[in-house]
């Protein structure tokens, strides 16, 4: 077992924990997006670690990282689009005040 892999994965776990806490605890849409970004960063760390310490010769691992980065960008773009619309219509991006979005 590789100690570096475990360290990198632990960092990923830490980022995931912090991100999860943030995404759940924050009431502001932008802050929630920040939490999601941290969770995705955790995924990135894990992907790179798996690639480097398990299959450094298979480039598909790196490709996945690029896909996750794309997802991050898309998430930001769509999230901000929604934020602008909500802010324009309701004057708020607080999730507490988004009752009509609840099921």
């Amino acid at each position: 077992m590789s100690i570096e892999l475990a360290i990198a994965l632990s960092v990923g776990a830490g980022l995931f924990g912090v991100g999860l806490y943030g995404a759940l605890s924050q009431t502001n849409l932008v802050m929630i997006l920040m939490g999601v970004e941290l969770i995705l960063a955790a995924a990135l760390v894990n992907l790179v670690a798996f690639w480097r310490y398990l299959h450094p010769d298979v480039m598909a691992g790196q490709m996945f990282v690029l896909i996750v980065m794309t997802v991050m960008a898309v998430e930001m773009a769509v999230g901000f689009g929604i934020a602008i619309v909500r802010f324009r219509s309701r004057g708020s991006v607080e999730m507490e005040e988004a009752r009509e979005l609840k099921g």
Partner: protein
Amino acid sequence: MNALSGARQAMPGGLRGLVARAMAADLRAFVVPGLDIARAGGLDPAGAGLRLADTPRHANVLLIAGPLPPDLLKAACVVWAQMPRPRAILALGADNIAPLPAPDAIGALSQDGLAEGVATLRKAFAIGAFARNVTHFDAPALAARIEYTCPMHPEVISDEPGKCPICGMFLVEREVSGAAPAGDGDHKDHHGQGAHEHGKSAPAQAAQSDHSPHAAHGDAAVYTCPMHPEVTSDSPGSCPKCGMDLVPQDEGDAQSGHAGHSGHGGHEGHDDAQDIPGIEPHFMSMVELTEGKPASPDGLIMEWIEVPFGPFFPGLPGGLGLILTLDGDSVAEARLHGAKPIPLPSGCPVAELPERLAAAFPLTHVAMRALAHRAIAAVGGGAAAPDAAALERERIASHLNWLAGFARQMGLVRLERQGAALQRVLVGAAAADIAAAAPGLRRFLDRVRRTPLLRSKLEGLGGLTGAKGGPVARAAGTAADARAKDQAYDGLDFTPIAGGNGDALARLMQRFAEIGQSLDLIARAGTIASSRPSSPPPSTPPPRAGHGMATVETARGPATLHLTLSDGTVERAHLTTPFEDLAPLATDMVRQMELADALISIGALDLDPRRLAA
């Protein structure tokens, strides 16, 4: 060993001596009241070895060009306090600059005076940039006190830190200019003063302190506007924004407090919060915070900030007070106020009037002098000597002066230098010299017209119609020109130039066309009657009593003087300048414009904020 008035506290000598010499070689001036005034006075700071600073923070020389009225002196105090030490004052043609410290160098308001002053300053810097004991600078204009307010509820104002009674948030401190109880101003050296709520701007403090009279600050009630809770004052009065009478703070507080509770009432306890299940007891509703706040045309509600541009803003005419309320990067509201009117002391002898008027309007002193002569002549029923050529020469110089400032505003430094150089050549030139310079000037204007991207930048910007006179009106197609009815122009074959759609580009082109026209007029007039200090004195002794009126088309538009004389002195003088016509139009013009565009549009108006008290 003489220290500078704004020396820095340190042991002089050694390495600092070298630094001091470097400072002496690197003088950076912040010009007060403005570069336009300096240029009109024939100054060329760059030619004298000074570099110009955009902000007081980058300057080490405060260059005072000409006498300052009291309100600008107050603003200059704030500028002085913002300049980092070591700093020095160079006063040209200004005798009394208290409460600023005594100048480190003085001189006449001329290029020679400037050059001498700079030489003196260099020596003073090399010797006294650092001193063991420095004098602290304090002036009433710098007085400020700290008050605490809730970020969400601006109507909550307290003298002590604590929590907001409405929402329970911690209060934030902010600095207010105005009455200062002793002991509040102990922050180091007053440099931080500039960070007035939103920032540096010196001018802000001076301008805003006008709104909050300096009442002694004690337990006195705080007054606020019912519509603009951010307006607070220590004494009753009217709101500078809407003119409503201010109400005592308690009243306003109770009102908004009530509104707050009827709105949601989530602050008192868990019971009230039941309408939103699961909501936290101290949750702050953003819907409520933003409710009722004005939204921009794009539907977004943004924090509005009020930013002062002036009276010493580098891109605008000196002395012009412009306060923009910014909504993101667009202008939500604009307030434009001229300089405080300069009182003309009653009982001023008639013979002194022309010079006094000329001194009050340094940008158009020739026209003002002519105006006074004509009005005096009109009282006696006669006519003043023809002075068209002198007026036209001033028009050319004034337009070039404006062009230099406008170029600076747009970042065209080369154009600024060339415009200023031509202005210096023309400002006092004889007719023959002007004729010699004319072809070069016309070529220069043609070149400017072809500046890449200039047309596309200015086209459609700041369209303004409805001005009554002056180049601004003529650029919008109104052929209003006082010269058409002016006897002085009889026989000079004058027809007003008018046309264009009234945008900034049209104004530029209009002024260029007028420069060309003025060159023709000077050529036709043949000679320029005389240069400073005055147009030819009236042949008859001045009248002693009566009423007279005269109009002169200055470079900025028609100026009209109503004059009532009695017993050889001026009893009443009422002057209307183009500023009164343009200022209200300008504030409408910039509404909802992008900030940079708004500043360019106002710059293109060529406003002269100076006024005469009635």
